């Protein structure tokens, strides 16, 4: 039985995806020899996306024809130039234990509250800005960057009153306000304000789906998924019928929609049609790209995505905000020591490699990494783990990070009413400073009640 040649491509993709899904892993890589569809116009920025082992998905590029899309990227690239600042937002999901990341090992109260989980003095590097604190041994890479003045630490960041729900607290951080009903993300609102309607790459989720912090009201943003995503293959369907069929799939997305759910379905079809139009040229195998980082990244999806991001920035793709999830979950109600250590080790190692890669490519002046989590955990341990808490740890990493701690560590003798760490800085103040000092945008246009927050110096 004859099958079209596209079936070979599809088959490989299926196997890759299946293998990836079964292993619980993320993006499979492009294989050498994967067929390159005919077509011209392959350029550096496009094939580097492929070298990321990923195709690009575009969200909300509603008013663009494929050609406008390509031109829009080029135009945004030209307008922004290589000096455009980039913020890379990295989420430590589940609420990481700040008291293990920067452990107050010199405090007597710490040993009392953490008889099992407490880290031993000398196990990790001393935090030079507050010698009562010690870096977790798995965060030694961060300590080294801190020594170089490239890490701004927030040892007790949060908001008051603390909501100890994962989902409410995470949502607050994502939408940049204490409003359970807000829908646009804080980065999405920045992009709605400062973005280019022709540049979906300005907000880039390196994940299977779009990060809520990037949710926009009007501007297009993008997500990266797997290599198979740029084709839509079907049984017994080939040229000359498949082209018009796929165009019709997209056209179905532009019709009237009588309800929000129907509109979401139509919009997704429309945007998928755009992606398909655009993806045809986004093809080149990794071998042909010639882009090899000079640093060695560790294995794993997170590191691979960071490596891809560095390559994309090197190609001057017009990215303003990128979003990733760090390795693992930090919701360590039990078995915390091993889980936290393993996840932190992998995350920090990849981040250090990313920073070194940026430095080697001379991109480090342009990029700031924000490491955040929805809250810190309870000082008093519950056996082998810790419950939800309040004040947590956040970091800004980058050559241009001010490198000066924001808010001191408040100690464990004075806890809040729920026996949690009292925050000494507000995440919204961090956002306001980032918007103004990094992006050069008026924070009040993005963060409600921005005037009520301090502006810590975050950038040099």
């Amino acid at each position, binding site marked *: *039985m004859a099958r079209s040649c596209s*079936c070979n491509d599809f088959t490989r993709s299926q196997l890759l*995806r299946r293998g990836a*899904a*079964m292993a619980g892993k993320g993006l499979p890589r492009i294989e050498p020899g994967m067929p390159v569809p005919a077509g011209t116009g392959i350029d550096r920025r496009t094939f580097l996306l492929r070298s990321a082992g990923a195709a690009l*998905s575009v*969200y*909300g590029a509603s*008013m663009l024809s494929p050609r406008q899309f390509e031109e829009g990227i080029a135009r945004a690239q030209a307008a922004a130039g290589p000096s455009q600042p980039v913020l890379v937002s990295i989420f430590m999901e589940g609420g990481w234990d700040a008291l293990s990341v920067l452990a107050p090992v010199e405090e007597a109260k710490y040993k009392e509250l953490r008889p099992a989980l407490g880290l031993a003095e000398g196990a990790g590097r001393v935090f030079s800005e507050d010698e009562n604190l010690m870096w977790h041994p798995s965060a030694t890479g961060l300590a080294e960057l801190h020594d170089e003045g490239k890490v701004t630490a927030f040892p007790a960041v949060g908001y008051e009153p603390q*909501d100890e*729900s*994962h989902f409410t607290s995470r949502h607050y951080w994502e939408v940049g306000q204490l409003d359970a009903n807000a829908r*646009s993300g804080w980065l*999405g609102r920045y992009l709605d304000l400062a973005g280019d309607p022709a540049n979906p790459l300005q907000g880039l989720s390196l994940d*299977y*789906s779009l990060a*809520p912090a*990037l*949710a*926009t*009201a*009007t501007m297009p943003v993008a*997500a990266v998924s797997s290599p198979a995503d740029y084709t*839509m293959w*079907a*049984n*017994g*369907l*080939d040229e000359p*019928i*498949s082209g*018009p*069929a796929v165009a*019709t*799939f997209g*056209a*179905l*997305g532009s*019709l009237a*929609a*009588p*309800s*929000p*759910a129907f509109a*979401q*379905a*139509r919009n*997704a079809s*429309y*945007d*998928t049609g755009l*992606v398909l139009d655009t993806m045809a040229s986004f093809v080149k195998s990794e071998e042909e790209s010639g882009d090899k980082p000079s640093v060695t990244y560790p294995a794993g999806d997170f590191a691979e995505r960071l490596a891809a991001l560095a390559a994309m920035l090197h190609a001057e793709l017009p990215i303003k905000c990128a979003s990733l999830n760090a390795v693992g979950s930090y919701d360590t*109600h*039990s078995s915390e020591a091993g889980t936290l250590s393993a996840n932190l080790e992998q995350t920090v190692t990849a981040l250090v490699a990313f920073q070194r890669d940026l430095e080697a490519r001379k991109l480090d002046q342009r990029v700031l990494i924000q490491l955040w989590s929805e809250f810190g955990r309870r000082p008093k*341990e*519950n*056996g082998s783990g810790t*419950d*939800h808490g309040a004040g947590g740890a956040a970091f800004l990493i980058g050559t241009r990070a001010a490198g000066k701690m924001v808010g001191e560590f408040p100690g464990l003798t004075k806890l809040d*009413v729920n026996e949690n760490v009292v925050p000494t800085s507000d995440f919204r103040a961090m956002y306001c400073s980032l918007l103004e000092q990094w992006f050069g945008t008026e924070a009040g246009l993005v963060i409600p009640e921005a005037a009520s927050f301090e502006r810590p110096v975050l950038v040099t």
Partner: protein
Amino acid sequence: MTREGQGAKKRPKAAHPERGKRTKKQRDHHGKHHAEHKTRRKHHKAARHRVAARPHGTLPVVLPTAPASPPPASSSPAPAVGSAALTLQQAHRLLWRAGFGPGPGQVDALVGQPCQQVIFSLTRPSGAATLTGPEPVDEEGNPLDPANAWGEDHCWWLDRMVRSDQQLIERMTFILHDWFANSNTQVNSQQLMLDQNNLFRSMALGSFHDLFLAVTTNPAMLLFLNGTSNSRWDPNENYAREMMELFSLGADRGAYTEDDVREMARSLTGWRNDWSAELGNYNFRFDPEYHDSGQKTVFGQTGNWNYEDAVRLCVSHPLHASFFVTKLWGYFIPSPPSEATLASLQGLYTGSGYSIRAVVEAILQHPDFFEGPELLTPPVVYNAGLLRSISRPIDTTAWAWLSANAGQQLFYPPNVSGWDFTRWLDTSTARARWEIASYVTSKTYPNPWPATGQPEYSATEEPAAALSGALEYWANPLLSAESEQCIADFAQTCLKEPLASWERSPYRAMRQNALRMLIATAPDMQVS
């Protein structure tokens, strides 16, 4: 060549049995439906080419959440559609939202029947479910091994969704899996996940109080939210918080304090289990030695509470009924219930002894169910519905990863709050649904290039007949007039006449396959 492809290769190509039998009744129904759409959106012009859509961002849809200050419960019943005759559109919506989509002929069988009677046939099944059709198998024809093989848990349940004659039971089981969302990533035992699944199924329409108590001591849940790591020496708050926030009361409503979380955790202490390399986690039990037998104050009430009290205190909390009925409502109807309806449903719920069945019946009979806006169809429901519509049994385990790509692998929700029902569709997941649809057709598509001796596809099929045949392939799904026109335009224009004689049959086969894909993946098919 994939296993799917091999399967398709082995199977002789046969005309779809339903093809060409679209009845006049069905055509009339479609015509009527289209007329309704045209009335509603009469300014619309059918698009022949891609047109620029209005600006749209990437915001989630809004689903109802229980208000912080709900109205008091009322004993007056909520409005109901009663015994009016079920329309075609209503039948489609009911079968997609209360089950997993219509099988061939099912809509026609229900149209014209009294609404209430049809709904009761879903909510009041008798006896054990009947699974009609071939048993589920993998690519090689082997029985599934849901307790051990990756993805076969997903396919085992998908089979029940496809074949069970008690569709609402399966749909409620699916809802409860999201309500009490446990993932095998942490539980790490497919058998324990299947046991929990059977628990949901057996209590899907019973008392929520009984169900909540059973879930609280269910081994998968005890592992997932650290119930057996919660002792009087080291209280662990994980289950205590989520049982209030996600399962019974809701966040940000002032229903409980952080002190309640702590006291609730103490109340729940006492569960243990053993572990061995051979058996994994086993011997789940309540051990009074591990229970904190002191006084605890929860919601202002003080006593020596235990896990049974913990559940009772939650379901008797003044904000529980409004939480329960609103959350359940949101799985069936995307617009929020009115104050009066919320009051009535709360009264019905508490007055019936926390009966899930009573509330589901009222929701399905509510005019908002039939008259309100569309609801997004979850990926698993979409997949099951396509299989049902062509009567294809589970004969591959590919559905597990295909569905995962579309955003939903059964037994692996992303976290304890379940899947995000407000953001099902984006450019990644829309494409993944196309992939699902393509797989569904893999054993029944006409091959444009049949081997010598195999029958060729019609070389003369007209566009209208092609479209009608493609609709029949999927058991005549409901498309909006605009979408059907757009697809009809494609059917009309995609063959560039004059065709060479060798092109006539293959290109018509391709057109048929394209039409089937466009119908199955149309935005209309992602909502009900």
